[in-house]
């Protein structure tokens, strides 16, 4: 599924990486644990998280994750935005909870990583 469709389905707002909206995602992973995120990694993976801090972006960088959804109305700070831009990532903010975001995307055919 294209990033653009994902963002629409969760009523998201793309705050970084608008030029990558046409890229395809096949699987998803939801977590608030950075060490858990570090055990994942796939170029086609979207990370759904309730966290919003600069370490989230660093952790994604280390895990080769380029697409992140920040659930439950979490806002992206300028520091996060700068680091995300440097790493050419896509950041999406949504007011949906992690559970709802995961559910919507799962129902739409996004595969679980594990």
């Amino acid at each position: 599924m294209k990033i653009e469709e994902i963002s629409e389905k969760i009523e998201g707002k793309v705050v970084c990486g608008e030029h990558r909206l046409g890229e395809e995602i096949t699987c998803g992973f939801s977590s608030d644990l950075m060490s858990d995120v570090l055990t994942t990694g796939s170029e086609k993976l979207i990370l759904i998280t309730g966290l919003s801090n600069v370490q989230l972006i660093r952790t994604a960088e280390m895990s080769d994750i380029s697409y992140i959804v920040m659930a439950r109305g979490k806002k992206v700070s300028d520091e996060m935005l700068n680091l995300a831009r440097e790493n050419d990532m896509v950041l999406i903010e949504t007011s949906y909870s992690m559970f709802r975001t995961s559910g919507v995307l799962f129902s739409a055919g996004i595969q679980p990583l594990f």
Partner: protein
Amino acid sequence: MEFEFEVQGGDFSNAGQASSRIKKILKQLNVDPKTIKRTVVALYEGEVNIVAHAWKGKIKVDIETEKIKARLSDEGPGIANIDQAMRDGYSTASEEVREMGFGAGMGLSNMKKNSDEMEIHSEVSQGTTVMIVNYL
């Protein structure tokens, strides 16, 4: 090739900078992506450990033709029981660190899983040194 980085305890804004630099260098050297991933995940967990637990530390990375060696040494509280610290789920991280998504007690075991060789030496109230080796 040798690289050395200083790491400040408590400085979460910059935590990961050393690992990020090493990742870029390994990419430039055309190292196999799987080896890059394993190495930087191990380094990053170690770097976050220094920031989360120690007062200050150093990360030294030596890239040779057949292996990558990293030595992460800190001045800090040390680890009283290394076996316990290696166990998944055991953590002494502060509430502040946990709120950032760390402190799940997976750091050291993630380092071990992502390295070919790992050694830890620690002295309580002095500091900890972790050495990892990944073969290319």
